[in-house]
């Protein structure tokens, strides 16, 4: 259980977070929504101990996060950054093997056990066939899977993902979201930021809304994700579309065009 309480943070006088609370437990998939510059990435980095909050506290398993050495934090919560380019053509296997650093330390070569873990997570995410390909040459979706595989190789129960779906084509987004649901079903706690309010409608167990440095809503998608909430976050009017069974499926903007309700 990773929990941030009353987090305040600012860069050079500009307040980003002003009392944000967010928690992540194993087995749940939590989506964090918020506008550009709302401080989603900042909150994730604070929860990973990469930034120190000016006020407030992050705890893991009830213990303050800063009581742990970096390696110990890395064995409890893993970070999946936004997909990026690497400056050197490491193979996918080399990238994933970096996830074993916290377990074996900086000065030990990976052993048989580490190689087994790496094989297992590569197979688990279905990218075993990419193992020897350069990370710089596979597609964006495959890179994102490699970064997730690296996080799984850390064998931490909690995964913190910064916009894992952005930059991926529609097919990759759908498949990756299903994959993340699967990981949550296996017992991983997954916290991800996203820009698309439709995604959490179908996939997430919980949605948190970040607005003005605070969590403006936190709960089941059906309760939290309302047209009012979307107007609060993004300043646009939307209608919520539902399927025949009354299940919410998507938002549709109602501004700037003739409103057409379903």
């Amino acid at each position: 259980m990773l929990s941030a309480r009353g987090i305040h943070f600012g860069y050079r006088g500009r307040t980003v977070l002003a009392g944000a609370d967010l928690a992540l437990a194993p087995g749940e998939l939590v989506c964090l929504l918020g506008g550009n510059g709302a401080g989603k990435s900042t909150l994730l980095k604070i929860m990973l101990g990469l930034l120190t909050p000016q006020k407030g506290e992050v705890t893991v398993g009830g213990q303050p996060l800063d009581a742990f050495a970096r390696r110990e934090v890395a064995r409890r919560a893993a970070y999946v950054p936004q997909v990026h380019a690497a400056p050197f053509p490491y193979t996918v296997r080399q990238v994933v093997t970096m996830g074993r650093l916290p377990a074996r330390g900086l000065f030990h070569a990976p052993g048989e056990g580490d190689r087994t873990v790496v094989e297992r997570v590569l197979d688990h995410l279905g990218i075993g066939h990419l193992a020897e390909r350069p990370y710089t040459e596979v597609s964006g979706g495959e890179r994102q899977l490699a970064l997730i595989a690296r996080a799984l190789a850390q064998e931490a129960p909690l995964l913190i993902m910064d916009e894992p779906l952005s930059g991926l084509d529609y097919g990759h987004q759908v498949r990756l979201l299903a994959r993340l649901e699967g990981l949550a079903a296996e017992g991983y706690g997954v916290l991800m930021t996203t820009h698309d309010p439709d995604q959490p409608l179908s996939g997430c167990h919980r949605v948190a809304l970040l607005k003005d440095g605070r969590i403006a809503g936190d709960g089941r998608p059906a309760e939290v994700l309302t047209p009012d909430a979307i107007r609060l976050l993004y300043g646009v009017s939307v209608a919520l579309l539902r399927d025949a069974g009354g299940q919410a499926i998507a938002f549709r903007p109602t501004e700037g065009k003739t409103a057409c309700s379903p």
Partner: protein
Amino acid sequence: MAEIVLPRPPGAAGPLRLATLLVAPALALAAALLALSLGRYPLPATETLRFLAAAAGLVEMEPERYALLHNLIVEIRLPRVLAAILVGASLSVSGAAYQALFRNPLVSPGLLGVLAGASAGAALGILLGGSWLFVQTAAFLTGLTAVGIGVGIAHLFGGGSLVMLILGGILSGALFMSLLSMVKYVADPYNQLPAIVYWLMGSLGQVNLTDMAWAAIPMSVGIVVLCFMGRALDALSMGDDEARALGVPVKTVRLATIAFATLISALTVSIAGMIGWVGLVVPHIARLLVGPGNARLLPAAAFLGAAFLLFADSLARNVFTTELPIGIVTELIGIPVFLLVLSRVRRGWN
């Protein structure tokens, strides 16, 4: 050198991978044997090997012959061969470590101003008319000072971020380059200025066993320490946040890498003057040979750097009747070799 540019087949494993790991040490050994055998009085490589075996007590050799070869191989050529090995390995391993640290395959060991600083210091030492040891010490200390100033600027004005480190290094390097120009301007144009200019072209001709004895220990330590940084540098090259999330103490690794790379690079200038291109080109050749993973790349770069400089020094000594400055030779070979590997190297860039 072109023949060692073997494209590594993707998925090379087992015996093939083992073989690629042995290429660099084997080349370094072969180059050392070549450098010990070549010279004004050339020996067949077999004769050099026979002498080495005799020195190790494995075979008998007539005493006069042994004395002659001892003088030739141990007294005259060995200091120079040791210097070439250490200088080549230091520059290459520093270059490879800096490329990972600064996430840029075009970075060389002089990035933070160590070479500019050491050059200015050496020129100042020559201007002040000091002994050779004084010139070497001045070069070493100003090399460290230049990097100290660059890193200091980065920490005072930018919290030690990567971009500020590079900017600090550029500023510090420019400062010492202008100091060097000033020293050249005031130097006596008949004696001191030529000495400064030749010194800046680089030469292994001045080394002796005493110099090498005091420099060998810190250089070997620095090379080995940097080689052990490989796995941390892999993670660091992916980004600061990612490395820290993987449990890597980013600031410590970065400062330690800069400290040891600066130490051994400043020593290369002390021993051999300015030798360019080795630290930029050799890591690329090593990357083609063993792949980009730094745990293998750094040792491979050290061996290949040693081989490269031994080869360059053998050319410098033997192509013309008078010795060429080795800095010119490394540039002349370095540029075509770099062009040769460029097409493969570019694959990794974005």
